[in-house]
């Protein structure tokens, strides 16, 4: 699989939390060749099963979220500027940003987040940026804006994926589309392999608003193990703690409440055997991934968290490394191949 091209394809389609259907449809197309059964539910969750053919086989859910960060139009000014809501966005990233607004009729209108030139700045607009002072310029007459734009329209960063030096890619929505590419990478390897468990590849909706999509899927299919894939913060110029994860450093295996230490150890064993570099990440309480919601779905699900490093998450210039996407996919595939029935344990105490 061409990881770069697949990531470009997946990030070129827009799908914010609550607006995932376009992105879900694309992911369904991409995973279809590697799955025995596939479905997109009414919540835009994509579920694709690879069956092992054994009756009452255990089920392992490999999950990443399909949604990306999105803004929303909240008001249209008399002059035709669009005010907006941007929860979870850093306002400094938005100042002067290239955006695209999707109208109720599906038209994509390019926009620019307003700025004031340095020579005309006075007082507080020099030193701070807050979203409530910003608006979007569509370059259209006020009456055209009022006709086309509706409060509640989704707004996205407009830029497409860019190749940087040294195997790095840069763009929007890598959180969590890059993890979905790892899943596709693994699914391709596993396509004709025989396994002892069924695998459920899931691309779930609305992680960025709390993860109800993953909870719905886990509650419905009751997996015996669910692995949530997400991205973690990578070292960069302004974040260089000695313990920070390096871009290109390989998969990061979570250990903690949402990430079963026993399964974490199993992932580590597999990584060592396959000579995939990895590091552990301590997750004492909240992992801020879908694992949190999956764990309490149904009557409870054993979860693991797997991630890889990313710079500048939730921006339009997120950076990931191709090797991390591939190695994480490689690790998932090796893990699935190494599964044994006895790994799953039992709830019966005596």
């Amino acid at each position, binding site marked *: 699989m061409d990881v770069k091209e697949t990531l470009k394809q997946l990030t070129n389609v827009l799908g914010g939390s609550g607006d995932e259907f376009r992105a879900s449809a694309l992911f369904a197309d991409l995973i279809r060749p590697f799955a025995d059964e596939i479905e997109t539910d009414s919540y835009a969750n994509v579920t694709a099963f690879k069956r092992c053919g054994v009756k009452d086989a255990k089920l392992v859910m490999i999950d990443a979220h399909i949604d990306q960060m999105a803004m929303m139009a909240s008001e249209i000014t008399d002059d035709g500027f669009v005010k907006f809501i941007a929860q979870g966005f850093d306002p*400094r990233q938005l100042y002067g940003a290239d955006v695209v607004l999707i109208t109720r009729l599906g038209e994509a209108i390019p926009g*620019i987040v307003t*700025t004031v*030139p340095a020579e005309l700045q006075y007082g507080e607009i020099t*030193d701070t940026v807050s979203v409530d002072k910003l608006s979007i310029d569509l*370059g259209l007459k006020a009456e055209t804006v009022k006709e086309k734009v509706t409060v509640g329209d989704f707004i996205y960063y407009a830029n497409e994926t860019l190749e940087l030096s040294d195997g790095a890619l840069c763009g929007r929505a890598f959180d969590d589309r890059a993890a979905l590419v790892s899943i596709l990478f693994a699914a391709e390897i596993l396509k004709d392999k025989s396994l002892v468990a069924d695998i459920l590849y899931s691309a779930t909706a609305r992680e960025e608003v709390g993860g109800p999509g993953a909870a719905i899927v886990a509650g419905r299919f009751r997996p015996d193990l669910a692995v949530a894939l997400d991205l973690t913060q990578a070292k960069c110029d302004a974040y260089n703690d000695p313990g920070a994860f390096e871009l290109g450093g390989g998969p990061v295996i979570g250990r903690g409440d949402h990430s079963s230490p026993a399964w974490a150890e199993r992932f580590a064993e597999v990584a060592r055997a396959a000579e995939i570099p990895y590091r552990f990440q301590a997750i004492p309480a909240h992992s801020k991934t879908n694992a949190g919601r999956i764990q309490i779905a149904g009557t409870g699900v054993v979860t693991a968290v797997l991630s890889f490093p990313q710079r500048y998450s939730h921006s339009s*210039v997120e950076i990931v490394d191709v090797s991390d996407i591939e190695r994480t996919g490689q690790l998932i595939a090796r893990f699935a191949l190494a599964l044994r029935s006895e790994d799953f344990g039992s709830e019966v105490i005596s």
Partner: protein
Amino acid sequence: MKEYLKVLSSLDGVSGREDRVRDFIADRVRPHATTVETDVLKNLFVWKKGKGTPDRPIVVAAAMDEWGFVAEEAKDSGAIALSAVDGMDPKAVIGKRFRVAGGETRGVISVVSQHLTGKTGTDKVPELRELALDVGAKNKEGGKAAVKPGEGIVYDYPFAEFGDGFYRGKAVDARLGASVLLRLIEEVSPALDTWFVFTASSKIEHRGGVVAARRIDPGTVLTVEAAAAGDVPLQKPALWSVRVGEGATLGLKEFGSVYTRELRERLARIAAKNGVKVQIRSGMRGSGDAGTLHTRASGAKVAGIGAPVRYVGTGNPIVHRDDLEALWQLAKLFVEEV
């Protein structure tokens, strides 16, 4: 004007690194000019013989250099340390894409995610010195391999049409004046002999303009440039300076200089007579080439004209084609009639 603006704004030339822009313009104007000269600061001087000869030289000037940085050494992190031209706004570069001037290497400037900083502090703007170019390198060696110290770093936003009649893209602001000058040289026969001066390093203390003034010692100076427009909800209307859609701009003054009233009023009369829409540019707090060019030799009359541009200094400045057309008409009338 679209093709002129497109071709010139797409060239890469940060202050002090204007070679590509200068060489391109020099090649284009040679068939139309009487003489074409350059100097050590990379200014370009194009003399065009007119029907008559003025008492003292007439200069029509525009800048060639654009917003951006010069790359310093790669840091241990692999990011490239940067040195900015004057007047760059740190807010405008965060989360934005850049390229090595004239090259394929891409990079971005960013702040760390709020996953690391927490919500508090996300409204605080860092100093330019705290920011660096991330080219995707993982260490110093990777950074050194990607960008050499001294290379120009420019915004990486292509020229495009935008909305209802706007043009956008990097250096649409910085090369707007140069686009008008290039077309004047190609299409207009001046009334009097005219020096068309394309200045270098306008964004580093107007250094090009300083020596250009001494070389020519003008008696009349007209500068053509983007007029920063603040007409967005973020800014109080009293501080808008100029408005998009209201036509070409006539400057009153800049930091350190008051423009020549008689010349401005004459331009306003010519515009009115010919049906060219003009507006007064009121809020110029920064300095332009006009201030330098008319004061550094024996002194000259000076006027500054332009077109209103929103988002000056960012990767996506926008100008409306009607305003640009009005500016072209006004500049043409000046050269043909004054």
